C-alpha cells in the first residue's frame, strides 16, 4: 500500500479554528462574565439572555471552524503538508 494521500490543512486556518472554538468555550466557562442581572434585555436579566444568545454565537463559531477545518483542496499535498496536519501523532 502506498502512503495514503493526505488532505493538506493550512496550519493558519487550523489555528484560527482553534481560537474560535476556544472563544466559544471560554464564553460559557468564565461564569463571572455573565453572573449578573444588568443590563437587561427586555424582561430578561443578563445572566439569562447572555447564555441564550451565546448559544447561536457558538453555533456560528462552530460552523466557521468547520469550514476552516474542512478539506482544503489539496494544494501542498506533499510529505510536508502531511506532517504539518497531524501534530503529535503516534509512532
Amino acid at each position, binding site marked *: 500500500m502506498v502512503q495514503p*494521500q493526505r488532505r493538506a490543512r493550512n496550519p493558519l486556518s487550523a489555528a484560527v479554528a482553534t481560537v474560535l472554538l*476556544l472563544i466559544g468555550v471560554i464564553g460559557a466557562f468564565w461564569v463571572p462574565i455573565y453572573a449578573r442581572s444588568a443590563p437587561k434585555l427586555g424582561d430578561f436579566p443578563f445572566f439569562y439572555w447572555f447564555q*441564550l444568545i451565546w448559544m447561536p454565537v457558538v453555533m456560528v463559531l462552530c460552523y466557521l471552524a*468547520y469550514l476552516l477545518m474542512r478539506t482544503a483542496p489539496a494544494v501542498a499535498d506533499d510529505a510536508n503538508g502531511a506532517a504539518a496536519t*497531524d501534530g503529535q501523532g503516534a509512532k
Partner: protein
Amino acid sequence: MTHINAVSFTIVIVLFAVVTVTGFAAARWRRAESILHLNEWGLGGRGFGTFVTWFLLGGDLYTAYTFIAVPALVYGTGAAGFYALSYTIMVFPIVLVFAPRLWSIARVHGYVTPADFVRGRYGSRGLALAVACTGILATMPYIALQLVGIQAVLTVLGVGGTSANGFIRDLPLLIAFILLAAYTYFSGLRAPALIAFLKDTLVYVMVIVAVLYIPTKLGGWGHIFGVASTHLKTINPKTHKPFGSFIVLPAGEWAYATLALGSALALFMYPHAITGVFAAKRRDVIRRNMAMLPLYSIVLGLIALLGYMALATPAVNAGVKAGGGNAQLSVPLLFEHMFPSWFAGVGYSAIVIGALVPAAIMSIAAANLFTRNIYREFFRPGASDAEQTRVAQFVSLIVKAGALVFVLALPKTFSINLQLLGGIWILQTFPSIVAGLYTRWFHRWALLIGWAAAMVYGTIQAYRAPVGGQAHSHFGGSTAPVLGHVMYIAIAAFVLNLAIAVVGTVVFRALRLPEGADETLPHQFTANPEASAAAPVPATVPGTRPGSPSAT
C-alpha cells in the same frame, strides 16, 4: 390529577402507537442483505448522513429525563440549574475537535465501541475492559431515568399512578417498555433513528408553543422572573437557607463552571453518544453536526425556563406539594394547567417518546460494549458476526429489563444517585479515549491506575456529599469542596486521574515496562473512507484531486 384526562391520554396513545409501528417498520429502512452484523444492527449500517445523524444525536442526547430534570432543578434551585445550558454551549466546540478523529479510526478498523478503540490503540485488554464496564455502569441508570421521566408524565396523566395494586400501577410503563424492547431487538439502531424524527419534531413544536404561549397567560416574562426571584430569596424551612439564587452567586461560580465543563467533557464519552458518532457515513457529517446540534441546546435553554414558568403558576406549586414535593412533576403539571388538553397530550407525548429514543440507543450501546469487549474478548474470541449480533440483541433486552427492575423495585433516588455517579465515572474514561486519539505517550497501566483511583475517589466524594439540611446523609449532590472551593466532583477526580496517569507513565517508561502493541497508524486518524464499512483503505474525497494516482 386523580382522574384520567381522556383527550390527553388518547393523544399520547395514538402517538405512541405511531412510534411503535415506526419502530418495527424501521427494520426495513435502508435494509442491508443481513442485519446479523453489528455494523448493521448496532450501528444502522454506518451510513447515516448529516440529516439523519442530526436527528439521531439530538434525539439521543436531549433525553426525556433532561426535559423533566433540568426544569425541575431550575424550579428547585434557580440559576444553578442553568449550568445545563452552559454545558451544552461548551460541548460542541470541544467535541468538534476530537470526534472526527475518533470516527476515522473507528471506521478504518471497524471499531463498534470506544473500548474497541482503546483495545486496539493500547493493546490492553484490561484497559478496554475498564472502559467497557464504566460505559455499561454509567449507561444503566441513565436508561432507568428515562423511565422516571415517563413515570412523571403518567402520574400527571392519572394513569395507574394512584392505584394501590403495584402491578396495575406499573402496567403502562411495562407495556411501553416491552414494545420498545421488541422493536429495538428487531430493528437495532435504525428504530431510534427513524423515531427520532417524530420525537424531535414534537419537542420543537412543544417548546416553541410553550415559550410563546405560556408567558402570555402568566402576565409576561417580567412577572415570571419577578416571582422566581422573590421565591428563590425566601428561606427554605428545611435547610434554613434560601431556596436558591436567581443569579449565580460568586461562591457558586466555580461549581457552576466545573459542572458545565465536566458534563461537556463527559457527554461524548457515554457509549450512546459515541454510537451516534460511529453510525455516521462520512467524517464531514460529524463536523457539520457539531455546528448544527447547538440548535437543540437553544431548545434546552428554553426548556430550562419552563421551570420558572412553573414557579409562577400557583396550581403547579400546589400540585408539586401534593405530589410530596416532587419537583419533577413541575413540567407535566405546567402543561396540564396551561395547555388545552389536546396540546398537553402532544407535550406529554414529546416527553414519553423523548424517553424511548435514548433508551433504545443506550441499550444498544451497552449491548455492543458487552458483546465486543466482554463476551468476544473474554469468552468467545472466535464469535462470528452473526453470533455477536444475536448476543447483542439479547443483551439489549437484559439491559432494559434491568433498568425496569431498577425503577420499579428500588427507590427512585437510587437511580438518580447512580446516574449522578455515572457522570462522574464516565468522565474517567476521557484520558484513555481522547488522549489516545492524539498520542501514545501515556502508558496503558498508568491510565488504568489513574482511572481506578479516580473512580474510587469520585465515588467516595459523591457518597459523602450531604443532602441540604440533613447531616450524615449521602449522595446529596455532585459537588464537593476541594481545596476550599466547591466544585464538580467529576472534575476533581479527572485531575487526579490525569496526574496519576502522567506520573505513572514517567515511572513505567523509566522502568521500561511493556507498552503493548498499537494497531493504529497516524494517518488513519484523519482518514475519510467512503461509505462502505468493509473497505479499510482510506480514500480521498472524489473530485478534490483530479488526476491523482489511486490511493492503493
